[in-house]
């Protein structure tokens, strides 16, 4: 943990240093970049004025409504307590996941407050949210790398995943069905790849916008200011996707499956839950247990 803490301190102290070192490139390129405004500049204005806010609002409302309907109509999964516990997450995994969880709980609300800053009236409150958004990004940097490598092998597609899709993950019925999923179900796998790959994309574009005058140019664009415009566009569009998946993940862990949060606290899942929700994983460990 002390190594983690020192890494955090280093990151916080290095970032502003980079920001100071960056020369005033945008100003130097101004004469050349003005005539090329129509390419990325007007695209950014059009998206920011007409689309980004709508995307975020529709995603937020649609997902919350769907989750609410699912909770009312189908209801949460409740499994009989068998008492037999199966260890699924070790302490390291739980710590890394909780750091990532903390970073997301910081990043998502602060990001949404900035998107709908007009609603909150701007000023000191939204400005503070911008700072917290950066703090969340630092926490995400330190958690995303171990998170990726500790789970990447478990997150590769398997043959049982097809069955999971066919039965709708077992979430569309009140009966207990064997979903055919391995240690992680395909929903978790999609979320894993979105959170790590698109999350890294968000980190890079966000860092570009944090620097404001980066000393390097994003591919496809010629000028620094256009790389910032492109970064803002990618950051917003990617954030919509991540927001959707994050809300689903949150709902699944907190409401959709009773007691699923316990596995992230204690590291153990109940045998009954594993038998149905992760049936092919259950088959595997059952063989190991009987051996």
């Amino acid at each position, binding site marked *: 943990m002390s190594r983690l803490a020192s890494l955090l301190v280093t990151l916080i102290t290095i970032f502003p240093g980079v920001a100071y070192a960056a020369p005033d490139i945008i100003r130097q390129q101004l*004469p050349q970049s003005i005539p090329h405004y129509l390419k990325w500049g007007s695209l950014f204005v059009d998206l920011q004025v007409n689309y980004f806010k709508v995307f975020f609002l529709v995603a937020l409302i649609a997902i919350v409504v769907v989750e609410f309907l699912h909770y009312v109509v189908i209801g949460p999964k409740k499994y009989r307590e068998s008492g037999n516990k199966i260890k699924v997450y070790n302490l390291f995994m739980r710590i890394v996941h909780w750091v990532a969880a903390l970073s997301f709980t910081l990043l998502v609300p602060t990001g949404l407050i900035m998107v709908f800053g*007009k609603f909150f009236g*701007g*000023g000191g409150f939204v400005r503070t949210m*911008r700072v917290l958004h950066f703090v969340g990004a630092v926490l995400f940097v330190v958690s995303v790398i171990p998170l990726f490598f500790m789970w990447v092998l478990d997150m590769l597609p398997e043959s049982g995943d097809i069955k999971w899709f066919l039965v709708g993950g077992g979430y569309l019925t009140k009966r207990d069905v064997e979903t055919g999923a391995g240690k992680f179900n395909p929903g978790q796998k999609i979320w894993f790849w979105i959170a790590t790959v698109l999350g890294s994309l968000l980190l890079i574009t966000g860092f570009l916008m944090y620097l404001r005058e980066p000393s390097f140019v994003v591919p496809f664009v010629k000028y620094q200011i256009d790389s910032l415009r492109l970064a803002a566009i990618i950051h917003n569009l990617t954030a919509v996707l991540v927001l959707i998946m994050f809300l689903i993940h949150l709902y699944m862990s907190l409401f959709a499956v009773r007691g699923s949060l316990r596995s992230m606290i204690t590291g153990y899942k109940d045998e009954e839950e594993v038998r149905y929700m992760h049936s092919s994983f259950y088959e595997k460990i059952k063989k190991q247990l009987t051996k």
Partner: protein
Amino acid sequence: MYKYSRMKFYCDEKRCIDCHGCEVACQVGNDLPVNIARRKVITVNEGIEGKEYSMSISCMHCTDAPCAQVCPVQCFYIREDGIVLHDKDKCIGCGYCLYACPFGAPQFPKDGAFGTRGVMDKCTMCAGGPAPTFSEKEKRLYGQNRIAEGKVPLCAAMCSTNALIVGDAEHVADIIRERRMAYGHGVLDETPYGWDIAYPNE
């Protein structure tokens, strides 16, 4: 003033001698920090004989100001006379106005904790800001309010060759037209940057 008058800057690149006087006048007159350049002189086609020219550039106070459109907290407001101003108490320093601006007008001081960027600063056409006119706060945040005093903005007031002119758009256009006639070019041979519309889609 006419009913539909709009205040506009125009820099005559045939008169601008690259002296950077407007930059200095703005910096000193408005007590700006070192890394803030509300106005800057740029040279286009530098080194190419016959094609090289300089011009002074700043916030062009666009009619459909894209900065005001993209601002997530809507801290911009456009005065009745067309001057685009913003509220520094509302601004969160996100930088979107810089991405939206064709001219690189919005400036961001690095004055926050850990050297993070502070709230946006830009040319006010020496018209102060939303704080009470002539108040200490207005002077500190936005600079002088020369428009309220009935004076020409600092940059245009000191321009020794009268390259940089400011005022009601139609009046400025008349002056430019007269000058172009005198040069022998006939009518305006090109559309000036950001004269009325920052980009043609709107």
